């Protein structure tokens, strides 16, 4: 009798040991966990994270525009002091130009980590495509950071100059140290070359990377290193996939002339939505630059809205979105890059053909387009670089160009006058490299960039 009673006591305890597996059930049942290739794709298809938060300092520090003094005083410190190339430009502010690209990195890394757990699917098109996209996005983000936070690439200094922290882990507790500039660029090109192998040739959805985009970005990356052979090689590859140019004669002038995804666009990206920069009324275009557009140049009217004695930029390739500035990859940039590479290699003819192919679509055909001519490399480069600045204005390219051209001895000194104070940024100034934001330094100590 006693033993039966003892057993009764034991029954409930036996119940506990069963179905311990239930404890593995996730608490949230409807919200998906990151598990499938489709989940991974849906993350990369989030343009707000992946495409719409590209750095804006790539434009903000340049000579394309100015901020009137009355507006400048009311800017928040980050913009106020970045604008004047202050030694301490960020003060204690959050710096989206640093943090947002790293968000792209963590999304990409999470996607890659998920895909690594699904290696059985590794041969499928979807898997390859998503993996390629993730690699592309990471390479692109590393490149964006490198343009602002490490010194311009030089063959002599790259192995000793400090690069960016290259983050591969998704563990937030991990602290990543700085690499060298060489390691940074090696990683960027490695990611992009790998991506190029996996991605489909072109993408109908412009926010998704493609082979064309990977080649176009590689071309830009090598150009930033003044490596003209490789830049030319990848520009060629990209243009062999897409070389469509918009004929500006076909674009009706309006308040936002370039609506949505033009064929010229290879990959869509937008600079981070900063109220200051995207309120175009705040940032009139540099008047010398505006006046340099010929009256027969359609870009003068399609790109700018001239009223009250100043020109405001309206020519972004993201016309349908409110206050956004396109900084993605497009065919016009490839023509200009290829033209420059040809010219650098003394292939003046090829260079001028590329330049004129583009300019023909930009010039009014009412009066007939008179092609640019050059008798030598120097003249060709002069034309190409002038048109490059005018074509790629407000596209986040100018900063990279200033850095690399000054390395080649261009000697471009830029200055701003704010409320009667003159600020200058001279060629080769160490202010071409931004300091590491204080939020990073305090939580993850690392050597800062000298200013």
């Amino acid at each position, binding site marked *: 009798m006693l033993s039966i*009673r003892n057993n*009764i*006591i034991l*029954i*409930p*305890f036996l*119940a*506990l040991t069963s179905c*311990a597996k*239930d*404890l*593995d*059930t*996730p*608490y*949230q*049942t*409807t*919200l*998906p*966990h*990151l598990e499938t290739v489709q*989940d991974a794709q*849906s*993350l990369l*298809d*989030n*343009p*707000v*994270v992946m495409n719409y938060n590209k750095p804006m300092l790539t434009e903000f520090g340049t000579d394309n525009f100015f901020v009137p003094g009355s507006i400048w005083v*009311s800017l928040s*410190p980050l913009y106020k002091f970045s604008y004047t190339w202050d030694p301490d430009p960020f003060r204690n502010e*959050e710096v*989206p130009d*640093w*943090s947002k*690209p*790293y*968000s792209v*990195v*963590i*999304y990409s890394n*999470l996607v890659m980590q998920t895909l690594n757990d699904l290696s059985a699917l590794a041969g499928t098109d979807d898997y390859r495509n998503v993996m390629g996209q993730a690699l592309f996005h990471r390479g692109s983000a590393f490149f964006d950071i490198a343009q602002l936070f490490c010194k311009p690439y030089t063959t002599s200094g790259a192995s000793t100059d400090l690069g960016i*922290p290259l*983050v591969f882990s*998704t563990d*937030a*507790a991990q*602290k*990543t140290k700085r690499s060298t500039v060489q390691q940074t660029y090696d990683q960027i090109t490695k990611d992009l070359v790998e991506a190029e192998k996996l991605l489909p040739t072109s993408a*109908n*959805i412009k*926010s998704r990377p493609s082979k064309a985009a990977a080649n176009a970005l590689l071309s830009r990356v090598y150009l930033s290193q003044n490596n003209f052979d490789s830049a030319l090689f990848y520009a060629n590859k990209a243009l062999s996939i897409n070389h469509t140019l918009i004929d500006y004669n076909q674009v009706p002038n309006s308040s936002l002339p370039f609506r949505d995804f033009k064929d010229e666009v290879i990959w869509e990206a937008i600079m981070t939505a900063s109220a200051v920069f995207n309120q175009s009324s705040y940032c009139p275009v540099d008047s010398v630059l505006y006046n340099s557009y010929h009256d027969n140049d359609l870009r003068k009217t399609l790109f700018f809205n001239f009223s009250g004695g100043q020109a405001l930029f309206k020519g972004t390739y993201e016309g*349908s979105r*409110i206050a956004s500035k396109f900084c993605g990859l497009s065919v016009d940039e490839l023509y200009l890059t290829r033209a420059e590479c040809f010219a650098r290699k003394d292939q003046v003819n090829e260079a001028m053909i590329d330049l004129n192919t583009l300019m023909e679509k930009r010039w009014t055909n009412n009066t007939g387009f008179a092609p640019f001519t050059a008798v030598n490399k120097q003249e060709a480069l002069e034309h190409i670089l002038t048109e490059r600045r005018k074509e790629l204005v407000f596209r986040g390219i100018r900063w990279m160009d200033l850095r690399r051209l000054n390395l080649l001895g261009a000697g471009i000194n830029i200055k701003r006058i704010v409320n009667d104070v003159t600020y200058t940024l001279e060629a080769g100034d160490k202010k071409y490299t931004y300091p590491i*934001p204080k*939020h*990073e330094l305090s*939580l*993850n100590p690392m050597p800062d960039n000298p200013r």
Partner: protein
Amino acid sequence: MLIIACDGFSQITIKARNVTARSYFNQVQKQSGYAFFYKAEHLKKAVKVKEININGDIIQVLDAFFNEQPYLSYKIFNKIITVAPKEMIIQQPKPGNYSDTVKGKIMDENGNALPGASITVKGTKKGATADDGGHFTLQNVDEREVLEISYIDHESETIRPKRQVLNELKLRRKVSDLSMEPVVVNDGLQHIAKERSSGSYSNVSNETFNRLNHSDVLNRLVGVAPGVRIDPGVNEGEIDLSIRGRSTFFGNTQPLVVLDNFPYDGDISNINPNDIENVTILKDAAAASIWGARSGNGVIVINTKKAKVNKALTIRLRMNISLTRKPDLNYPPNHMASADLLRVEEMLTNYGFFDPELLYMEPKPALTPGILLFAKRRAGIITAEDSVRQFNELASYDVRRDFSKYVYRNALSQQYAVQASGGNPKAAFSVSAGFDRELSVLQYNDNNRYTVSTNNIFNPVTGLQISVGGTYTERELNRNNEGYGSINMYTRRLPSYARLADEQGNFLPINYKYDPDFINSIDAPVALQYIPLKEIKNSFNKTRLQDIRLETTIKYQILNGLRLDLVSMYENQTITNTEIKGMETFYTADLITSYYNPAGIDERKMYPIPRGGIITRLNNNLRSLRARAQVNYKKTIGEDHFITGLLGVETGKVTTTGNQYMEYGYDARTGTTRSDLDYQSLLEGYMNMMPPSNILYLSNPMGTVDINRSVFSNISYDYGHKYIITGSVRKDWSNLLGIQFNRKNVMLWSAGLAWELSREAFFNVPAIPYLRLRSSFGFTGNLNKSVSGLVILGTPIPASIQGLYRNQILNAPNPNLGWEKIALYNMGIDFKIRSLINATIEFYTKKGTDLVGAVLVPPTTGLPGLGLTYMANATGLKTHGVDLQVQANVIRRHFRWSLHTMFSYNRDKVTNYDSSFSAMRVMLSSEKSAGIITPIAGKPLSAIYSFRFAGLDHLTGDPLGYEGKVISSNYANILQSGVEELKYHGPAKPVYFGSFINTLGYKRFSLLTHITYRLGYYFRKSTINYYMLYTNGDMNKDFAARWQQPGDEAHTNIPSMPEPGTTSMRDDFTTFSEVNVLRADNIRLQDIKLTYDFAQFKWGKLHFDNIEVYAQVTNMGIIWRANKAGLDPDYPESFPAPKIFSIGFRSSF
């Protein structure tokens, strides 16, 4: 047992009915050989004994007879038994320890067992405590000794144990109206005699709980237990209950509610307070740790009325009618005199402030009648005379009058409850039903609740008890009116001179979203007028809730002292919310019009949002299944060793599923909606009424599953009621956290010690008959359901372009997440002073470690860029406090006076927190309990900070602050200063709080007053924000007292009205400057209640045990406040808790 008559006939067996003295004596004589000696006349006084069934020695056998004899007694000498009247028998001292066992049952006047009642032998330390059934056994009692039976709040009784088995001993309740602490506490797992525990419990008796007549449980707990603080909630009308302060940053802050044995998963408002028998609040580790990982915020154990065996049929009725007064619309500070506002609007219009709206914006937005008037005057459309006339007309209106008349009302609420219960020794039942109808002071808002519940007990065989119970609740909530402040002009506040209705009571339109001229100029397919009172009248927002809860309990006595309990519970709660915005509502009309495309080729293209209503449905279902098996053990070893313990396992699974979705084209007649909408295309707005947009597709499925398993054990050892050692241990497993198995479980334990000093021989203070010290230490836990170790994605959103589904990471995954642990130490002293004062004082500390908090991570992790906060078990919080409770029965005759007072002290301090916040962020938070919190190490979790204030500028009336030590009006720099520059005022939550409950009684009348106090904290009052006044029309009463000319700074701190176009920084500085931080300390008269008790009452054939009628006023208001601004610190912006007048009666028969 020692027996003196020790011979060969020691065992005697007698079985007989209707025994006479003679026949009994004969039998005894035959079996024992003892002879009887008596006088015949004496034997006439003997009474017949109904039944004797005895097997024992001579004394026992004789006692069996003589105990029933009122007049006769006996004595034994030399085998001769002398029988005589009691007064003639002189017992000679018996050699040695004559002793015996006395058994009995202790009950209250109503026949309810009093477990935990104590019975002691007077003059000795011998004693016993009644068990759950009120039974006690006392050994070695000499029949000459006097026993004293006592029970808290009951009059002590003394008896002489003339028999071994004593009849039911009834104790009368003391003449006190307040009995806060019956000795037995029910912690949800077991009934514990309070004096056998070391834990911290507050017991809220039925009587106390019913003192207030709120229709929800939490509101009835205001001011009834020390350490329990009730603050106004984040949303109006909500309350926030905390036990001994907050013990988590971001985790669940609510105490665990245990309803009849199990954690309650449903909405606490489902519970009808009239069904509740009592409430126990578990505050320390010894008490709460048995509830494991969810007990960190304390536990509220609610026990409903249960069937009781062996009770006559009783019916209880309760009825209550209350009137809630409409709020005083003059109270909220967000108001300006109509003329003042008009003058500001005139100044702004003439300045050109509204020119963008008046001249350029497309479509032209709604502006106030004042602005439109001044614009017309400026443009020369109307004459100065007309302008003045219209100005004066507008200035004569006050929109608060309209609100008071058309939006609010004095609301009548009703509560009815009936309960019937009864039972015989084999079975018992209890049935109850309740209906509550609560009208809100806001018209068209109400709340109905129907509850039915039943509980049945069967005792099929000895030692087995089965009980089955169930509760069904149905609630219906109508929320159609959001009240004052919710009606606006879309982007601007409603001006103080607006009108909701004309003199005849016709509802009037207001300018809303679009300028009336714009609306008239377009060919809108539906009427676009916005008439606020009509919107309220046409609103349909109904929530239905159905909740069913079933419970089964099986109790089986396996062996003496060993009982197995099997308990299970099933609950199913369904909530449906339906909101219909008909085509006549502005929202729907606006949406239809904005998408309207007159060029559309068919109905579908013309009306992308179909004509008809918009219906939003929310369905939510909760299913919970819980079961527990538990073995209870109880053993007395020898005289002084008492051991009780339990060991159990519990398992539970709570599943929630739900969906919220929106449908268009709702036709009220057919109940149909349209499903053929084009959600994908980007559609142009009609007349630029919106930017190109998609039609909002709302479908939001949600679901969770919460699986728990636990093993727990509890043990207590009691030595002679003097020393008690208790211990508990519990292990919990949950699917909530962690990827690794060892993160999914947590082991919590507690240990306690109690010492009843007054039982010690050396303790001999007549004034203090009872003194007990107790102390406990242990761990409780908490967890945060909002964090997860896994990567969680959102619901995929169809992107507006190209049919992509995009998603995002919702959390910063942390695979190392674990439980929060709270170490609790509690020390308590319980004592009595004579029979007058009953007091408990407790000291405690709480130390939260491994609390989940935000940990700053560098931007290279990618999380800051995504706006995700990395949560980890990395923060700490320390709390200490004192709880004091005193009950005094000062006078208790015809005139009665009793006082019950509570005092609590609670202070917390963040020990470590790894985040740095900006000064502004710190000040924007901390205002409300559940808002954003910004813990700063070394400071309370909720604290009030401000900018230092240096007065107003003599020439301009600008507010002045400090940059370091320098007086400055550079607001940009001041606002960007570090947290260390801020002035710290103090906690935002009361540090000292408590209540006084005073009861005066005369004969059958009693008058209760309840005063509460909250001290030692601060609040921020609102003030005029000129930036918001200009851009939004936000008003504040302070405007009238602003600086207007040099010299005003001597008597005002309210800055001058600045030029339009200045930044918001000047106002931000003023808003958060120290002049707007006030001491919040206050004393309020919570309620007054007058009761008349008819007691026993006969009416025809009905015999009432009790009828009580009462009248009560709740929320009488503030008696004293530290602030001079006339503000209720708990409601500085919105309306204070409304006064409620109620009358009602309670009866049982």
